[in-house]
């Protein structure tokens, strides 16, 4: 036990009574956290749909301040969507390898996933640069940037989490019996992907 110079009274430095845990608290916490993230996106989607129905009587897509309609690059983003979805599968494959005792496989899976995620982000940034409208345009553009921006931020967080896992994978820290941080990270990554699929259909396609 690595008790350093602490504030606890000296006679109470004993370690606490041990108790068997029935379920993995960290995974429960991650699922709950994802639940609250789902609600955050739900609130932003609510905003988006209010705005959408606010202009429902007019044409869709709505017009920009300069009178042109908003257009979104559906095809390019569709490809990007495929990249992100595949990254969920590569991550899943990596975890499978770990379960089979193959740490190398996990490392490979993580690398591919991270690279694909990063590609997604770069393509998305590139899209921002060429869209031809800013968040300060009509309410629709604000909703668009807010939704995609929040999602992008989540991808970034996911990437950081996966990179940390990768680092630990190099140190051989994970095994099929201990992989909680990895599993939690992969839950998060799948969540980020699923949100994107929803977002793509609700904002870009329909």
């Amino acid at each position, binding site marked *: *036990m*690595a*008790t*350093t*110079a*602490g*504030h*606890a*009274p000296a006679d*109470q*430095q*004993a*370690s*606490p*009574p*041990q*108790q*068997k*845990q*029935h*379920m*993995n*608290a*960290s995974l*429960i*916490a991650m699922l*709950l*956290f994802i*639940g*609250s*993230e789902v*609600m*955050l996106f*739900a*609130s*932003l989607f*609510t*905003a988006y749909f*209010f*705005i959408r129905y*606010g*202009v429902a009587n007019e044409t869709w897509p*709505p017009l920009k*301040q300069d009178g042109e309609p908003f257009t979104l690059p559906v095809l390019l983003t569709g490809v990007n969507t495929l990249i992100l979805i595949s990254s969920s599968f590569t991550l899943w494959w990596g975890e499978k390898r770990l379960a089979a005792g193959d740490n190398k496989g996990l490392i490979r899976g993580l690398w591919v996933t991270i690279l694909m995620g990063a590609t997604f982000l770069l393509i998305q940034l590139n899209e921002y640069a060429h869209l031809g409208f*800013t*968040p*300060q*345009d*009509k*309410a*629709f*553009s*604000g*909703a668009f*940037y*807010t939704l995609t921006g929040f999602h992008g931020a989540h991808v970034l967080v996911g990437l950081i989490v996966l990179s*940390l896992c990768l*680092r*630990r994978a190099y*140190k051989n820290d994970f095994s099929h019996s201990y992989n909680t941080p990895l599993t939690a990270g992969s839950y998060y990554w799948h969540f980020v992907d699923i949100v994107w699929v929803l977002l793509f259909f609700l904002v870009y396609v329909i």
Partner: protein
Amino acid sequence: MLFAFLLVFLLRALFGFEPLYDGGVYGGVAGLIGAIGFLWGIGCFDFWLGWAKGADISEEDHSFHGVSNWKQYFRFNTDHKVIGIQYLGMTLFFMLWGGLMALLIRTELAAPGQQIADGETYNGFLSMHATLMIFVFAVPVFGGIANYVLPIMLGAKDMAFPRLNALSFWFLPVAGFMFLASMFTGMFGAAWTAYPPLASQGTMGQTLFELGVQFAGASSIATAINFLATIVTMRAPGMTIWRMPILAWATGVTSVLAVFATPFIAGSQFLTMFDRIMGTNFFVPDQGGDVIMYQHIFWFYSHPAVYIMLLPGFGIISEVIATFARKPLFGYRAMAFSMVAIAVLGFGVWAHHMFVSGMAAWLRVPMMITTIIIAVPTGVKMWSWLATLWQGRIHIKTPMLWALGFLFTFLMGGLSGVFLGIVPADIQMSDTYFVTAHLHYVLYGGSVYTIFAGLYYWFPKMTGKMYSERLGHWHFWLTFIGTQLTFFPMHWQGLQGMPRRVSDYDPRFETVNSIETIGSYMLGVATIVFFYNIIVSWKSGPKAPWNPWRGKTLEWMVSSPPPLFNFDAVPQVVGGPYQYGIPDARHAVVFAPEEFGGELKEDTRYPVLVVANETLTSQTLIDEIRARNADGLWSFQLVVPVGDGDRSVAERRLATTLAILAESGVSATGRVADGDVVSVATEAAKEIQPNELVIATLPLAESQWMRTDSVDKVRKATGVALSHVVVPANDARALAGTSALPLVMVVATEAIGAEALATVVRTRADAEPARFTVVAPLDLPDPRWGAEANERRRAAGEAMTATINALVNTGVAVEGEVMDDAPSVALPLAIDAYKPSRIIVAGINGETAGLREAAEAAAGDTPVEAVNLGAAAGA
């Protein structure tokens, strides 16, 4: 900070914002960076950063656990008990500020026209008041109580994620001080609801509000996740969900609400903030924006939020009412289910706040129906509390007072809520003082009263000290009367059409408004009494025993305050949490450390010192000891101080009590000691180092010990947690008559009243603990209603009283009865009624043989002894 400005400047330049300088934006970002810097500096991220860097860190590092002096409450700490206190301290601090704002509001409203603040400033006071009260008092304050007691109640050593727990706490001061900081930057004035377009205007204070709400929200989500993980994974063995205390249910349900509702307010504040600092157009109608959308998102959080501020209070009240009514909680499962129902329904009623907002009209009726349905599970709870009180043994201690105050106040608020939920009524009453009355009745009742109930209830556990009961009562009554004075007239005012959130009003409302202002000052005074009580009591109050309220849940089975990791060993839960009044029912068994092997043995039990003399054999005291014994933690040492009294009397009483205790399975030893109560108790306390000292006395007027203030002297001299048991005089003389000690029947006619008879009984009592009944069968002359018979009856009665008094005063458990028939008729009846285990016939010379014969004839198997008191009785 400089970095922040630079960053903003660069970003703005990059994206070509006009103008390049906007105080609100810079201030906001500076606030944000400052907040993160603060959290970093205090050490919130150390562990995770260490983990990320791959540094050598240990999950089992408990160096941030526990405190050794009060200054450490201002430091980063991961101990749930410390965090609980930090939470309470911080939220009460914000309550003080919020209360100050309320007094300023009431002062402005004391008379029509302008008193101390113009419209703008008034809006600032109002917004600051509501924001502080809701986001950094009413919502998080329960997190303080639950942080402290919930892990102990569940039998856990801490929360599931102690470091996350610390982080959630430190978000709070960030949020609160951001709100407060806006006083220097121009207060935000769009109330706690912050509706755009009003919220899109205004000063930098509004930006700080939006940021602060994000931190408060993050704090509440993180704690909620933590509570849920704790409840799901950290329960002690045997703690099934149906054996959890209701507080655990309440915290769990609240946490679900917090996890799933809070993101909506985060979303709403992001949107307004983007409108303010990035120039988006969410709420600008001619750019396609929609202001009603804000209200939907906001209330989708804020209606569930009223239950976040309420359900934990329900939990606290359930604990308090069951404990102080000494009855099992009525409808435990209904209580749990109704909370779940409230939470589920609570997500489907948000638009009842928007009936007059211009939202889609078809939404009104469905929302009205769900709103009114929600009153049903609430009613289930109300009736369950009342049914728990019904025929309970109600103890009016301060926590119970608050609980009763809650029942009344919250009922009022619930009723006005149903009015407001009905669309046509609400169209009339919305935005008037009727709403103000409603929300203050529910929030005062549901949050403030319950939190005070909880604070007083667990104060001894948290601090190890007792608060002053007298000041607690003062605090309650001042608050209760103050609340009614301040808020009751608002119903009328609202119905008459006085709008809320305005700094001036029509002169016809002057009288009620000034009454309300007086009421609010009373509330201010009450708050001073409260803080005085807790601060002084914590510093120098008397020491608290482990279980001052005789509660059953696990937190009462550990010391006050609990040890660093709460339990020496994992407790085992064996029954429900509220089995008050059920003999031998136990909620849990606290196992001794492994090396002692399982449950506490006699010699590993903690000693309790019991000091009593005249009241030693009373039922009250024996019940107190038995109740403590049910915890399975204690062994009892009885000490009987005899000053200049009769030593043998004390010995006799001690023998009787020890026998009664032994018979009900209580492990107790005792001795009689010479000297006055203070010195004897002090000596004994020094010798056996008891965990608790129980002193029993007669009521103030009759007690020698109380007259000399001995109880307080003992308290001061020993410094041990002391419980004072007051025994009514008639109980002290009843001498445990109902106990199952062997009953000896003494039959006497002529000998009644004789000193020799009393001596015989005393000798018998000294030989073996027993209780006695003296029976005097009178062979009365005919006619039995004649003068002679009456005279004999009277004489026998007098003699009997003399004998009984002589015996009782010398510590013998005895009753007496004069019977109207000859021995041969009366004794079979008496033996049948009393079922004695032994019969002693005491006669004088000639009559002895006859009495003996009659007794033997009636006795069956019961042994009969005869004594001839002979000449001795003549004296």
